[in-house]
């Protein structure tokens, strides 16, 4: 991330206040420094999408990815974006709401720009890409925390690695994952006791391998 630049935020637009708040909660857990604004339900607490609430949520963030649940939430979000003084500061993203919000939040936490955050959310809808094994240094790491590379450990790993100038691949069995993709890391299914192979290329490849080994040694701060 550029020095002093604000992290990209997230706006979650849903027909339900509780759904919007819940998605924001799950995404926020992965990204403590990202503003995740929820706009769900109608003004009177019913099911629907409220233009004014969406506009207020947009006002709470700067550059932001906007995710929505169903068709009319998209339409209300579109209208609210069109009504901004600078509509180009946000991107409406067609992505699965929960996976997309988590992927976007982690990307934003790592300092990704708006386009990269949006594309992380969109990619959450497809099968995790099989990462080409990065040529270069390689280490074997045994996971000693109980849940392995799941949820928070995966998020912490993706966040840590995405801050480095390195391309990192984590392999487990015949599966491999981009080290900066929380969903791909989780899809490896590596649990406590499993051994993963981590390889890295790029200017900070050594730092990346050291960082991964370090995180695993600390049981990912679990």
């Amino acid at each position, binding site marked *: 991330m550029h020095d002093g630049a604000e992290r990209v935020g997230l706006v979650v637009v849903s027909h339900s206040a509780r759904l919007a708040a819940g998605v924001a909660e799950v995404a926020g857990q992965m990204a403590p420094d990202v503003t995740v604004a929820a706009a769900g339900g109608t003004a009177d607490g019913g099911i*629907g999408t409220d233009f004014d609430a969406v506009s207020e949520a947009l006002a709470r963030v700067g550059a932001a990815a906007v995710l929505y649940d169903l068709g*009319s939430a998209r*339409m209300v979000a579109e209208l609210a974006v069109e009504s901004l003084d600078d509509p180009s500061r946000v991107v409406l993203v067609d992505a699965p709401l929960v996976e997309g919000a988590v992927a976007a939040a982690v990307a934003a936490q790592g300092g990704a720009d708006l386009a990269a955050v949006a594309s992380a959310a969109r990619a959450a809808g497809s099968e995790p890409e099989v990462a080409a094994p990065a040529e270069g240094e390689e280490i074997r790491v045994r996971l000693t925390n109980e849940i392995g590379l799941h949820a928070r450990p995966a998020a912490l790993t993706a966040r840590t690695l995405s801050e480095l100038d390195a391309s990192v691949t984590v392999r487990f069995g015949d599966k491999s994952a981009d080290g900066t993709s929380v969903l791909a890391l989780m899809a490896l299914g590596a649990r406590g006791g499993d051994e993963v192979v981590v390889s890295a290329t790029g200017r900070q490849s050594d730092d990346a391998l050291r960082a991964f080994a370090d995180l695993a040694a600390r049981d990912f701060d679990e």
Partner: protein
Amino acid sequence: MACTAESVADAVRAAAAVVASHRDELVALDRAIGDGDHGENLNRGFTAVVAALDEGTPDTPAAVLKLVASTLISKVGGAAGPLYGTAFLRASAVVKDAAELGPAEVVAALEAALGGVVARGKAEVGDKTMVDALSPAVEAARSADSVSELLTAAAEAARAGAESTEPLVARKGRASYLGERSAGHVDPGARSTALILGSFAAGPVR
């Protein structure tokens, strides 16, 4: 005769009245194939529109249409809010600051409204949506000579268009999740479009 801001406001009040009196019908249609809130949402929106007009009628037809748009966008919680809101917003933009609307302006407003609904909802004729009522209405309006005639022609075409949605399988909106089971019901959005255009034709806009 042409329509002034006052007569556009009267037409909108007539639409609010017809939405109120058909609220239960729209709720029932939407309950069959949607989420059941169309009648309630639209009635809430138009009630708020009338309240806003009661504060004072804006000076131009465009300003009336814009007030209707912003009120519907804010007050209707479902898809009807952004769809009708965009329709009225685009209609407002196209008639600019004209003090009175003649047939050409009203046709342009209807065309702009249709364009807005299509852009917002990404639906085509045959998808079982508002477009199935609004699109033939615009087509019919083009061939009439006076505002009164064109509104009558538009209303009749919209009514037929709404009825034509009954056998269709929905391809857009909440009803599309039902697949084949959406057939056999009139689309609530097409029905409300026909009701609103019908109220314009029957109202004092002449």
